[in-house]
């Protein structure tokens, strides 16, 4: 498709170069560190799971043991391998007999790293195979049913996974292609992942592996009936980013919200912590074929969507580069943006179209995630339905990939069954009645749309230069994004960050790198 905006291509390239420079700096900082959740993730991918009588997950217990009684700077891998080696137990036996106060991991002398890798190899292989099997299943289903140019995405958020299933199935039958199970409000700040099927949450349902499994099964069933592959989404951002990525890989989720910037800005998570976690989690996603979704859209719910549009683009360039470094392909980069300009602004729709088309042209192969109006939605449900119509039109006109449906009750409550149905009907009417609009409608040469897009690109370029001249840490400390300032050593989760010792190993990460280098 030919460019409709005539964007300055060299400026785009320059932005990418700047983003490289910016992420280089970050990488330097994070390479030397690991976090407790990274280590727990290693355990999970070796097959460690379960909780004790206090509902503490086993991975937490084990890592905590090493933190307290061992030397976590060496990584969990060496501890678990040493324990297996010396105890002569299988991993399953170790898990079943695990007891924190017994020092099950820390009571043994540590073995050689090579030996450790060898011991853990079969476990890694088993879980990698499961993940690859999932990937194959997903691809097969895509082949069978085909892919949509635009996927309709809705959320369920009852707090009860079984109610969520009812609602998710209803949505899929009504035409939704992607179902996201929103997490309970508190979860991203928990430094562990809850366990088992859950039926109580606030504003969402806990992300647990069992819940993933239950919903995956339900969506596969409805997909079979509907002859469509229904994608499942959950949220990784937060203090357990890589663990959730691992669980998602195992349970064949298809999309994960996965963005440090969101965690830092909107959840006050420590930046060191979450940059490290993000990198590892994205590697897992890259391997599992899971699309990541980034949270740039959120900037516009806090700051003004017209004047701050360029911060979204700048952040997308940075997120793209972070993703590349974790071996994610463009096809898995669901960069976020949003339709959030105040509709009271004259020609706001044209500005929205400019911004959406700009994102589309700058990231042509990325499955862009386009968020609906939320901030300027009021309790007037009829008006909200109109605003969502405009959003759906902008989506159709600019060919967005992941189309998050706006709810007429956005300002009121998490969606009712009928709200979701009406949202899907709205979008489907637009998709149908405007099927060919993207090819049919052209934009005026040097008109409002073209000008707006260039302007945003230029401002993003300036912002990236500015960030590159200091650092992303600095930018975050100074509230460049969404006007929120976060100190380098503030926020939640810093105590879970540690410097890696020279003999640190992470068997999963190493195995992943091997796989990436194979291809």
């Amino acid at each position, binding site marked *: 498709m030919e460019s409709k905006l005539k964007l300055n291509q060299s400026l785009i390239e320059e932005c990418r170069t700047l983003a490289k420079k910016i992420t280089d700096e970050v990488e330097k900082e994070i390479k030397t560190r690991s976090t407790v959740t990274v280590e727990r993730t290693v355990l999970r991918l070796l097959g460690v799971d379960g909780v004790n009588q206090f509902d503490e997950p086993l991975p937490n217990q084990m890592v905590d043991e090493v933190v307290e009684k061992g030397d976590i700077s060496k990584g969990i891998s060496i501890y678990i391998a040493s324990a297996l080696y010396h105890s002569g137990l299988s991993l399953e036996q170790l898990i079943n007999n695990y007891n924190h106060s017994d020092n099950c991991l820390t009571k043994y002398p540590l073995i050689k790293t090579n030996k450790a890798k060898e011991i853990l190899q079969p476990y890694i292989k088993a879980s990698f195979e499961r993940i690859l099997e999932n990937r194959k299943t997903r691809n097969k289903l895509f082949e069978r049913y085909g892919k949509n140019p635009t996927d309709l995405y809705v959320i369920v958020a*009852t707090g009860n996974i079984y*109610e969520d299933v*009812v609602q998710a199935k209803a949505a899929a039958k009504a035409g939704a292609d992607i179902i996201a199970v929103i997490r309970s409000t508190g979860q991203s700040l928990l430094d562990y992942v809850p366990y088992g099927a859950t039926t109580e949450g606030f504003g969402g349902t806990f992300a647990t592996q069992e819940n993933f499994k239950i919903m995956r099964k339900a969506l596969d069933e409805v997909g079979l009936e509907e002859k469509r592959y229904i994608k499942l989404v959950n949220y990784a951002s937060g203090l357990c980013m890589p663990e959730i990525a691992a669980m998602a890989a195992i349970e064949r989720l298809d999309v994960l919200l996965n963005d440090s910037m969101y965690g830092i800005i909107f959840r006050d998570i420590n930046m060191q912590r979450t940059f490290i976690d993000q990198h590892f989690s994205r590697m897992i996603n890259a391997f599992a074929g899971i699309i990541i979704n980034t949270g740039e859209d959120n900037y516009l719910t806090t700051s003004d969507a017209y004047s701050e549009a360029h911060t979204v683009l700048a952040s997308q360039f940075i997120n793209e580069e972070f993703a590349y470094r974790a071996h994610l392909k463009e096809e898995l980069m669901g960069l976020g943006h949003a339709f959030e300009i105040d509709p009271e602004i004259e020609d706001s729709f044209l500005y929205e179209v400019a911004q959406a088309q700009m994102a589309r042209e700058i990231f042509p192969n990325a499955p862009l995630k386009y968020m609906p109006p939320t901030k300027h939605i009021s*309790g007037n*449900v009829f008006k909200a339905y109109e605003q969502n119509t405009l959003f759906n039109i902008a989506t159709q006109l600019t060919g967005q990939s992941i189309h998050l449906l706006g709810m007429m*009750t956005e*300002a*009121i409550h998490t969606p*009712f069954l*009928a709200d979701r149905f009406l949202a899907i009907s709205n979008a489907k009417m637009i998709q149908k009645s405007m099927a060919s609009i993207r090819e049919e409608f052209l934009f005026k040469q040097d008109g409002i749309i073209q000008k707006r897009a260039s302007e945003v690109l230029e401002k993003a370029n300036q912002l990236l230069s500015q960030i590159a001249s200091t650092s992303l840490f600095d930018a975050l400390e100074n509230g460049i994004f969404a006007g929120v300032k976060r100190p380098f050593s503030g926020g939640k989760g810093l105590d879970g960050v540690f410097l890696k010792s020279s003999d640190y190993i992470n068997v999963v990460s190493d195995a992943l790198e091997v796989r990436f280098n194979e291809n």
Partner: protein
Amino acid sequence: MKIRPYGDTSHDGKVQLSFTLPVSSNGLGISAAKELAKKMGLVNPQVVHMEDIHEGYCFFVVYGSVPYEIETDLLKNEEIENVSLSKEDIEALIERNFNRELVFVGASTGSDAHTVGIDAIMNMKGFAGHYGLERYKGIRAYNLGSQVENEEFVRFARKVKADVLLVSQTVTQKDVHIKNLIHLVELLEAENMRKDVILIAGGARITNELAKELGYDAGFGPKKYAEDVAAYAVERLIEKNK
């Protein structure tokens, strides 16, 4: 089974409401809106939107839960359910039970000028993929069009010895359709013809319940097609014949 509205979770009783009150959008306005919602049974009503739409008139959107339960086992189905007979079934039924054509006469009566509804039921080409009565073997269908006076309608029915009368009514403001529908029944009774015909009303705002109240045999609303009406009428005629 006892049921309740389902918003976000089973049995939560959630409903959405909107209305205009002759008040202004201020604290008193909210109280008035809540008061009304409470009278309607809403527990903890939330006034989620209010907006002045004219001096002293305010539009409200309200959400809340109702405590009421509906006992589904006690519900009466007041509508005529689609009998699953196809055009061919119906034609066969007529052939088997009658050795003559059945006569259907239809019109949009009184001052009502809407014909699309009655045409949908009667015309050859039908509507939404359902052929109209004119195409049915065994049925002679007369569509008198719109703005047909009841007197004229009854005269014609007598002339062609109608078996079934189809009356369409679309305009319902100030219950003009009710007056008109009652007038027709009265005329038929005065002419001693009521018992000779199956009398059917139809239209967007017509329900079976309403039609029966007014002395009709049946009433058909939106999404009803020729085969629904024909199936019903033919079965009633067969019964009558016995």
